[in-house]
C-alpha cells in the first residue's frame, strides 16, 4: 500500500491519534511539535544520545531516527504515558535526575528493558542503557534506581532545623522525572517565528552578502545581519575583554560563527537549505593576527611567583620534570542551546538555557541598545551547562528577531551547531619541574602553560588567572613560579569548563609528583600527605589558610590505597595481558571569582497569609542549588524546609545570585541564604522579644514563637505590608572577602577553598592499549555536607567527565561535531565509585561548607594517568589516552 500524504494514525500512550503529517518526518518532531509531547527530548538527531527514546510496540527506539510512516498503525509510548511509575519514583528517590534532560530517554529505555527482564543484574542494566548518554550523573544513581524500581516516596522532609545534612530529594525533581520540565526548546508561544543562523563554513574567512532581500522575499522569510543590530555588536563575559560580535561583520574568526539570521514560519525555515543563502566567502590570511589589537595573538598571561625557584632547584636532592598536552574538550551537555524571546510591552523577555541570567540580561541589552531594565531573562531549565552556558549563545539572536519583528522568536541549535559555535575547554601545552629535598619535602615548582583560547576572549583571562594560582595543587611549596598564557587562534572559542584550566594543570602537576615520589623512593600517597597544605601554612599566593582538609582526604585513602596496591600486585602476579595499576591525585579549588567581587543576594519573605517564599536566583543546571540553598535558609530561619516555597531564577523576580560557575553557589549564595534566614529570624525574635533559642512554627496566617515556657503568636495579617508584598522579609548580600593579587600573584584570591583526592584502580590491556577503570575512591572535603545525595551526584558526574578527559574526549574542529565521533563515557565505561565525605569546617563558608562542583573533576584524569603508569611503567603525555597512544607509550617505556 502506498501512503502518500494524508492522515496518519498511530496509538500514542494508549490513545489513537490521527494527524495530517509528512510521513518522512522524524517521529520526534511529530511528537514534540505536532502533538505537544515535549517530554521526548532531542539531543543529536542522529541516534547518538538516546534522549529521544520512545517505545515503539514496546521496543526502545530513537524517535529522531524513525520516520512517522514507520510508526503508523503502531503503539508509541512516551514519558508522558508513564503516569508516575515505580521506576519514576525510584529515579526521584535515588537522585537519578540531575539536569533532567536525559531522564525521559533513560526512563523509556529502562521501562522497555524491565518489561523484558524484570530482575536484571547491574551489568544487564549497563548494557540496556548503553545507548543513552548522560553528562551529569556518571550513571551510577540511574542504574541504582533501575535496580530498585519499586514504588516509594523519597525520605520524609526534614524537621525544622534539620534540613542541612539531610538526604533531601531534589526539590525540583518531580517535573524532571515526570518529563514535564520546561527546557529551552520546550516553551512555545503562538505564532513564534523560527530562527536559524547562517554560519561560517571555515575560518578565517571574509564574506559579502548578495541580494538578501530578494532571497528573503523569495523564501518568505526575514533576514537579519549585523547591520540590524541597534546597540553595541560586541559581547564578552569579562567587561575588559569584550570582543565577540553577536553577528560577524564581514569577517569570521571561527568555523561556525554566526553571520546572519533567517527567521520565519517554522514550516518554511526548518525546511530551508541554507546552502543557497546569498553570501560569498573568501579565505582570509591565516597568519594575520586574530584581533588587530593583539598583534602577537597573546590575549593575556597570568603569573604567580614567590621565593627563589631556581636556587631551590639547584639545591634540591631530587628534581622531576614533565610536559603534557591536552586537546579541546566539548561540554557535550545533552541539551543543545535553545530558547524563545518575545516582547511584553517594551520589555524583551528571553526564556533560554543559561548559567548566568544577569550577565545574559546586561550583554543582550547592550547589543540590542536597550536599557537593562527592559530585558528580562527567565532561565529555562538548563539541560547541562558545565561552563559553556555562561556565555551568550542565542540570546541576542532571538532577542534581535523579537525586537525587530515584534513576534516571538524561537531557536534550537542543532548538535553540530552547538558543538561548532559554543565554547570548549582550553587545549593546553604545559611543562613543569618540581624539586624536593632528601626527606621528600617539596622545595620548588615551575609551571609554564600555553592555553589556546580560540577566536574570542571568553573566559581566557580567567583560565590564565586561575591556573598559576592552582598549579601547585593543595601542597605547601615555598619557591614557586607559574605562568599561563591565553592565546588567540582561528579556532573554537575556549571558555569555561568545570575547573577553568585547573584540571589541565593538575594533570601535569600530579603526574610530575608521581615521578618525584618514585625518584625519592617514597610511597606516592605518603609523599602527597607529607607535602599537603595544612592550617596555618600559606599557599603559593602567600595566603594563610584555615580549615584545610587535604591531609584528611589523603588519610581517608590510606587504608583503601594499601588494599588496592596489594590487589594490583596480586593480579599482576598472574602473568596476563591485563596489567593492574593504582593511581592517586589531589585537588584544590578556590570557590568564587578570583579576587574580584561576585556577590549573591537572597530574599526571603512571609506573606500575610503565612506563606514563606524564598527568592532563589542561583541557576540550577542540575547541580542542586534549588535544593541546597533552601536547606541552608530554612535552618538559618528555623522553619521546616517543607514550608518554604521557592521562586526560581528570573531577573524580574529574584535578586542577583551571580552566575553558576566557580563552584560558588553553595558557598556564596548559600552564605547570602544563611544571612537572609538569620536576619528574618532576628526580626521575628525582636518582634516577639524572644531569645535566640526560641523555636518557630508557621500556620496559616500566623507565626508562633516559643521558648518552651512562653509562646507568642504573630498574626501576620496584622503586620504592615512591606516591599515585595511581604509582611516580614529579609534580603541579604554576601560577597567573598578576597584580596587582589599583586604583580607576583601574591594576595588572597579566594576566601574559601575545597579539597579532595581520588584513587583509581584500573587495568591496561598491554597488547591493545585499552584501559578499563574498575574503581574510583573519592575523598572530598566539603567542610559541611549540606545534602549528601546531591553531593554524591556531583562526585559521580565529575568523575565521569574526568574519565572522559583522560581516556576518550578530543574535540577536533570540523571533524567531531557530533556525538559519535566525539565520545563521552557511556554506562559501560564507568567504574564503581566509593565516595568518602570529609567535613573540615571552613571558618568562612556557610555552616562550614565549601564548594564541590568543579573539584570533583580535577583529580580523576591525573589519577588515571598515574594508575596507567603504575600498571605499565608508561606515562601518556598527550590526552586523551586513546588505545594507540597508550600502546605507543608502553613501547617507548620499554625501550
Amino acid at each position, binding site marked *: 500500500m502506498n501512503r502518500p*500524504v494524508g492522515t496518519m494514525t498511530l496509538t500514542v500512550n494508549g490513545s489513537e491519534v490521527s494527524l495530517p503529517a509528512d510521513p518522512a518526518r522524524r517521529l520526534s518532531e511529530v511528537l514534540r511539535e505536532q502533538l505537544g509531547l515535549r517530554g521526548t527530548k532531542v539531543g543529536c538527531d542522529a541516534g547518538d544520545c538516546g534522549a529521544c527514546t520512545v517505545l515503539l510496540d514496546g521496543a526502545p527506539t530513537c524517535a529522531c531516527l524513525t520516520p512517522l510512516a514507520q510508526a503508523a498503525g503502531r503503539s508509541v509510548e512516551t514519558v508522558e504515558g508513564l503516569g508516575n511509575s515505580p521506576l519514576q519514583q525510584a529515579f526521584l528517590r535515588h537522585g537519578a535526575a540531575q539536569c533532567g534532560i536525559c531522564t525521559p530517554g533513560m526512563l523509556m529505555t529502562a521501562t522497555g528493558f524491565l518489561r523484558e527482564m524484570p530482575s536484571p543484574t547491574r551489568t544487564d542494566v549497563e548494557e540496556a542503557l548503553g545507548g543513552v548518554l548522560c553528562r551529569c550523573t556518571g550513571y551510577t544513581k540511574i542504574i541504582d534506581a533501575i535496580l530498585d524500581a519499586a514504588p516509594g516516596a523519597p525520605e520524609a522532609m526534614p524537621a525544622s532545623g534539620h534540613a542541612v545534612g539531610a538526604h533531601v530529594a531534589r526539590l525540583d525533581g518531580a517535573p524532571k522525572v515526570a518529563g514535564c520540565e520546561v527546557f529551552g526548546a520546550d516553551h512555545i508561544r503562538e505564532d513564534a517565528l523560527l530562527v536559524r543562523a547562517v554560519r561560517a563554513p571555515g575560518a578565517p574567512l571574509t564574506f559579502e552578502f548578495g541580494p538578501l532581500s530578494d532571497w528573503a522575499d523569495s523564501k518568505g522569510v526575514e533576514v537579519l545581519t549585523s547591520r540590524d543590530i541597534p546597540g553595541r555588536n560586541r559581547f564578552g563575559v569579562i567587561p575588559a575583554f569584550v570582543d565577540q560580535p553577536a553577528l560577524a561583520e564581514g569577517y569570521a574568526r571561527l568555523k561556525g560563527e554566526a553571520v546572519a539570521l533567517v527567521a520565519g514560519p517554522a514550516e518554511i525555515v526548518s525546511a530551508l537549505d541554507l546552502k543557497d543563502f546569498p553570501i560569498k566567502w573568501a579565505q582570509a590570511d591565516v597568519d594575520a593576527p586574530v584581533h588587530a589589537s593583539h598583534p602577537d595573538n597573546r590575549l593575556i598571561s597570568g603569573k604567580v611567583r614567590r621565593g627563589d625557584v631556581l636556587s631551590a632547584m639547584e639545591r634540591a636532592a631530587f628534581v622531576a620534570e614533565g610536559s603534557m598536552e591536552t586537546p579541546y574538550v566539548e561540554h557535550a551537555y545533552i541539551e543543545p542551546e535553545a530558547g524563545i524571546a518575545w516582547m511584553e510591552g517594551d520589555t524583551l523577555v528571553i526564556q533560554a538555557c543559561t548559567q548566568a541570567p544577569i550577565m545574559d540580561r546586561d550583554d543582550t541589552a547592550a547589543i540590542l541598545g536597550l536599557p537593562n531594565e527592559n530585558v528580562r531573562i527567565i532561565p529555562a531549565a538548563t539541560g547541562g551547562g558545565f561552563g559553556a552556558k555562561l556565555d551568550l549563545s542565542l540570546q541576542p539572536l532571538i532577542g534581535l528577531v523579537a525586537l525587530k519583528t515584534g513576534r516571538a522568536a524561537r531557536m534550537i541549535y542543532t548538535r553540530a551547531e552547538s558543538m561548532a559555535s559554543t565554547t570548549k575547554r582550553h587545549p593546553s601545552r604545559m611543562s613543569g619541574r618540581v624539586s624536593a629535598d632528601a626527606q621528600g619535602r617539596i622545595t620548588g615548582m615551575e609551571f609554564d602553560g600555553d592555553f589556546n583560547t580560540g577566536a574570542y576572549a571568553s573566559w581566557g583571562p580567567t583560565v590564565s588567572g586561575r591556573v598559576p594560582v592552582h598549579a601547585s595543587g593543595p601542597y605547601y611549596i615555598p619557591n614557586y613560579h607559574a605562568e599561563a598564557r591565553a592565546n588567540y587562534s582561528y579556532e573554537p572559542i575556549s571558555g569555561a569548563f568545570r575547573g577553568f584550566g585547573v584540571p589541565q594543570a593538575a594533570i601535569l602537576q600530579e603526574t610530575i609528583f608521581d615521578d618525584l615520589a618514585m625518584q625519592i623512593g617514597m610511597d606516592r600517597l605518603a609523599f602527597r600527605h607529607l607535602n599537603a597544605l595544612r592550617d596555618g601554612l600559606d599557599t603559593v599566593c602567600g595566603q594563610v589558610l584555615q580549615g584545610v582538609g587535604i591531609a584528611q582526604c589523603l588519610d581517608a585513602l590510606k587504608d583503601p590505597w594499601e588494599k588496592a596496591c596489594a590487589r594490583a600486585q596480586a593480579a599482576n602476579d598472574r602473568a596476563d595481558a591485563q596489567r593492574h595499576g593504582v593511581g592517586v591525585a589531589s585537588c584544590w579549588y578556590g570557590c568564587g571569582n578570583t579576587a574580584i567581587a561576585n556577590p549573591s543576594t537572597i530574599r526571603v519573605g512571609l506573606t500575610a497569609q503565612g506563606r514563606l517564599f524564598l527568592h532563589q536566583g542561583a541557576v540550577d543546571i542540575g547541580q542542586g542549588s534549588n535544593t541546597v540553598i533552601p536547606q541552608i535558609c530554612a535552618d538559618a530561619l528555623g522553619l521546616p524546609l517543607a514550608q518554604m516555597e521557592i521562586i526560581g531564577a528570573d531577573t524580574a523576580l529574584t535578586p542577583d545570585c551571580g552566575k553558576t560557575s566557580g563552584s560558588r553557589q553553595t558557598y556564596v549564595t548559600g552564605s547570602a541564604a544563611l544571612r537572609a534566614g538569620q536576619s528574618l529570624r532576628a526580626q521575628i525574635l525582636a518582634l516577639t522579644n524572644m531569645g535566640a533559642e526560641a523555636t518557630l512554627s508557621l500556620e496559616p496566617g500566623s507565626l508562633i514563637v516559643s521558648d518552651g515556657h512562653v509562646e507568642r503568636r504573630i498574626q501576620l495579617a496584622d503586620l504592615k505590608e512591606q516591599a515585595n508584598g511581604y509582611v516580614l522579609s529579609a534580603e541579604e548580600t554576601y560577597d567573598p572577602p578576597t584580596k587582589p593579587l599583586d604583580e607576583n600573584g601574591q594576595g588572597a584570591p579566594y576566601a574559601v577553598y575545597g579539597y579532595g583526592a581520588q584513587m583509581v584502580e584500573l587495568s591496561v590491556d598491554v597488547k591493545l592499549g585499552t584501559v578499563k577503570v574498575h574503581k574510583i575512591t573519592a575523598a572530598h572535603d566539603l567542610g559541611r555536607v549540606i545534602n549528601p545525595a546531591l553531593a554524591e551526584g556531583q562526585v559521580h558526574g565529575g568523575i565521569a567527565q574526568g574519565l572522559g578527559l583522560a581516556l576518550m574526549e578530543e574535540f577536533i574542529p570540523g571533524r567531531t561535531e557530533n556525538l559519535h565521533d566525539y565520545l563521552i563515557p557511556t554506562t559501560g565505561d564507568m567504574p564503581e565509585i566509593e565516595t568518602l565525605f570529609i567535613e573540615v569546617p571552613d571558618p568562612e563558608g556557610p555552616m562550614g561548607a565549601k564548594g564541590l562542583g568543579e573539584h570533583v573533576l580535577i583529580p580523576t584524569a591525573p589519577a588515571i594517568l598515574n594508575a596507567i603508569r603504575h600498571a605499565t611503567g608508561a606515562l601518556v603525555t598527550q590526552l586523551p589516552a586513546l588505545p594507540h597512544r597508550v600502546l605507543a607509550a608502553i613501547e617507548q617505556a620499554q625501550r
Partner: protein
Amino acid sequence: MPEIAYHRPDTLAQALSLLQSGQHRIAAGCTDLFPATQAPALDGPVLDITGIDDLRGISRTDDGLRMGATTRWADVIKANLPPAFDMLKAAAREVGSVQIQNSATLAGNLCNASPAADGVPCLLALDAQVELASENGHRILPLSEFLTGPRRTALRPDEILTAIEVPAQACQGRSSFRKLGARKYLVISIAMVATRLVVQDDKVAEAAISVGSCSAVATRLPELEQALVGRTADRALPDIATPDVIARRLSPIDDIRADAGYRTRAAAELVKRTLRDIATREVPA
C-alpha cells in the same frame, strides 16, 4: 500540505515497480539516512521497504540460511542460530545501541557500506551472498563483490537488496567476534575481527577470518586461513596469526580513532584472541 513522495509499499513487486519508474531513495531502518541530514524530515522521493513483510525474518532453506533484507539486528540477537552465527549475534549487540538494533536492518548495514560496518566482517566470514532484485529478475552476488569500496556497492539504481544468504557449508563450525573501540557502547570500531573455524578431530578443517575497519572494505585473510587448516586447534593455534601474515591484506588509515600502524597490530591481536576464543572454548555436548 503538498504531496510528499514517500512510498511504503507492502509487496516487493510494488516496490520494484516504483523503483523502475524513477529515482527513489531506499529507506529501511533510517539509522544512517537521518543522521546524514539535520532536516526534520527525509528528503524525497523515499521508498520505504519496511512495510514489505516478506523481506523480514530468518529462515532455513535447502541451501543454508536466508536472512531477509529488513531483518533487524535485534531479530538476529533473538534468533535461534547455529554456533557459526555466534559472531554475528555478538556483532549485532555492537551495532550502535539497543535503540539502533531495534530499527537498523541487515541490508542497511551492507548498503551503507561503511568500512566500519559491524555486520560485514561476520557476514564475509559466513561466505554470505546477497540477493538483488529488480523488475528484470534476481541476481546473486558474493558479499565481497557487492561491497566495492567505502560507501560504494554494486547495487544498481533499479535494484533492491532483498536477502542475505549463507550457504549450508558456511553454517558449520564455531565463531567469535571481537570489536575494539575507545569506549564500551555505541562506538565506531578501531578494528574488528570475525573468525569461524570448523574443527574436526581437533584439527582445523576450515577457517574463515575477516577484519573490519582496517581497509576500505572489510576483508578476509586467505593466507592465514590456509595456514590454519590442518593445525591442531589448541592454545598454540593463535601463534600462527603473526602481524606480517595479516598485514598484507590490510590497508589501514590514520584517523581520529587510531593510527594505521596501531590498527594492524590491534587486528593481529584480535585475530589471535578470536582463535583462542574458539580453540579453548568448551564444546557443548
